[in-house]
């Protein structure tokens, strides 16, 4: 049961041109979607809480590349990227953000509470770490039914300090549940840095107490994410789960739209954007490897811009839910 740090070799490109272009497209889709969501929030079309995923795109895109049909995913309130990466319709997600009838929850869930049974996306949870035992429960069902599906259970470095995470680790290890615990370590639990909140910096080693294998992964490198995900998923499918992946990542925006972000410097954020951006990384691989031209990438940019515009338009024009919706869905 050895835990390992991210290796330098993990980033060696061993990927097809098509897959690289797919990663580029998917990560850009998330980023542009989130930028648009930020704009709509500023216009008052999105209300309440809105937690943007900008900066962390490589994590979900790299892991989704290791998933097969039937695999499940569940996450926190910073969930827009996860929904887009698993193939949910940007229109339906955006319309939920604006609280409209066309949203995935018909406007009754909001940014933090969306689901898609079809895509095996189980939310969208607003209470920090509550999704961790729920995700293990999804894996429990798959093991019970005797299939080889895997449950991707995402949570943050902040959630990693919740007690129920360790209660869940214990049971998941005891019952060998096929769950990949994905710790998205973006270094800040709202306004508290990991240094100020976490006694031992290597969260991935915490599974060792329960006999759970853990790895630290460069979460800004989509190829490293995919490589680590492949190992974790293989272990789970082989009945050797659970598995912990600590994704070292970074969120560029505030915790939510109302975060003044005084707990870190603008220089720190800018440095990550300039030097470690996951999308720029893939863009460079594509261009320097001559897998794509500038014009090819511009065409993708335009294509995504059109998808996002369409989603935003839909989210603005879809009607508000009928007043009768107030009283529906309370019991089946």
């Amino acid at each position, binding site marked *: 049961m050895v835990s390992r740090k991210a290796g330098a070799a993990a980033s060696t490109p061993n990927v097809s041109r098509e897959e690289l272009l797919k990663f580029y497209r998917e990560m850009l889709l998330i980023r542009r979607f989130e930028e648009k969501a930020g704009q709509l929030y500023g216009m008052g079309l999105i209300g309440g809480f809105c937690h943007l995923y900008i900066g962390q795109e490589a994590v979900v895109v790299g892991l989704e590349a290791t998933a097969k049909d039937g695999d499940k995913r569940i996450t926190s309130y910073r969930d827009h990227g996860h929904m887009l990466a698993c193939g949910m319709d940007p229109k339906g997600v955006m319309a939920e953000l604006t609280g409209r009838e066309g949203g995935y929850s018909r406007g009754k869930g909001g940014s933090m509470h969306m689901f898609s049974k079809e895509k095996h996306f189980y939310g969208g949870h607003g209470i920090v770490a509550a999704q961790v035992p729920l995700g293990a429960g999804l894996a429990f069902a798959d093991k019970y039914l005797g299939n080889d599906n895997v449950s991707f259970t995402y949570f943050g470095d902040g959630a990693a*300090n919740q007690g129920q995470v360790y209660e869940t680790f214990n049971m998941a290890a005891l019952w060998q549940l096929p769950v990949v615990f994905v710790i998205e370590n973006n270094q800040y639990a709202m306004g508290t840095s990991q240094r100020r909140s976490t006694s031992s910096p290597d969260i991935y080693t915490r599974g060792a107490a329960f006999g759970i294998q853990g790895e630290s992964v460069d979460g800004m490198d989509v190829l490293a994410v995919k490589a680590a995900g492949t190992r974790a998923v293989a272990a789970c499918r082989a009945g050797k789960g659970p598995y912990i992946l600590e994704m070292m990542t970074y969120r560029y925006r505030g915790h939510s739209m109302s975060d003044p972000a005084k707990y870190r410097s603008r220089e720190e954020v800018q440095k990550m954007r300039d030097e470690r951006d996951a999308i720029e990384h893939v863009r460079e691989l594509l261009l320097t490897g001559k897998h794509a031209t500038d014009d090819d990438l511009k065409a993708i940019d335009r294509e995504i811009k059109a998808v996002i515009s369409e989603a935003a338009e839909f989210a603005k024009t879809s009607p508000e839910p009928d007043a009768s919706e107030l009283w529906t869905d309370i019991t089946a």
Partner: protein
Amino acid sequence: MATEILMPALSPTMEEGTLAKWLVKAGDTVKSGQILAEIETDKATMEFEAVDEGVIGELLVAEGASGVKVNTPIATIVVEGEAAAAPTPVIAAPAPAPVAAKPAPAPAPAPVAIVAAATPDWPAGTPMKTMTVREALREAMAEEMARDETVYLMGEEVGEYQGAYKISQGLLDQFGARRVIDTPITEHGFTGIAVGSAFAGLRPILEFMTFNFAMQAIDQILNSAAKTLYMSGGQMGCPIVFRGPNGAAARVGAQHSQDYAAWYAQVPGLKVVMPYSAADAKGLLKTAIRDGNPVIFLENEIMYGRSFEVPDLPDFTVPFGKAKVWREGSDVTIVSFGIGMVHALEAADKLAREGISAEVVDLRTLRPLDYDTVIASVQKTNRCVTVEEGWPVGSIGNHLSAVIMERAFDYLDAPVINCTGKDVPMPYAANLEKLALLTSDEVVAAVKKVTYR
């Protein structure tokens, strides 16, 4: 074609803000992500970034302007390559949003209330000062921490962040990191630590960022804090205050919008406080910190920014278990507490214009509860309507109805009506949220029903 840059909404409850500082001027070329201005909300000063590259056309709102409504144009920007383009806005549509997507409108300021002489909280002629509920809570904590070395504040973001809702602003500077303690996000764990320290003689003030998150820790609150004095035969008590915002804010969805008043009021061993005014927030919090028992202190985000008159006294406290009569009347008794008082007082104003005289009673504490004041009022008016934000089943109003029936049955000229929030999880959609919440019109309708008008 210039595009308008609109005043952004920077928090769920923000409706307007102050343009504290411009960091650009007309003619400046700005990059995406560049800070354009600093905007001050009631919670924080936020930096506002450009979304696109372009040249600033003109600044439409002067630096220092306050009360700038969300979505007001504050500047224009000419985006590169758009000089001749159609007026498609990049940052914001110039037309109003197609629907009212703004946060639920805040209720009107508290009407001028007639305070009955029967419930004086301070002597006549006491000098008064105007302060917000937020300032009152902060002042209460600061005064009690200065008074008693064993009092400390613990919670998420209470220190360096200065409080998620800015209630603890400045306390870290004043009292230091030993007494103002930031925790990781771990409600179950830190609640246990704080309760243990209270068993050992300290007096913690535990802030929950909202009471929704206290659900994670409710086992420690009920089984550890509330029952130990009883279980230990009186040997060990637990002097602790659990405080934070409770109930609905605006558009934050089902998991962040719940009123726990009736839940906690049900538990023996706890005291439960839910203030409406700033004076009560201050006086009751000071009493809570001095109390030898676990006290659940339920605040409200929407009320934090409201201003009230507070007595300017060196040590102002309000006792538990004493209701306050805000307005005397003869036709009906309206009983409420917390943010419900906003609707109760607003309804009383409307009713007065129609010739119906309502007496408005603010319970202030739910455990202990001042039954005598309620009963005395009902014996005078012969009618009662209760008002609260929480759900109808097992509500405080249900309980009061039962008590009134038992103690004042022969005085009643009509059944008691309970006005509550709707029996649904809080929806996110703006129109549905409005429908789910209590309104003063519903209170007016209930009063008309019990007065047969």
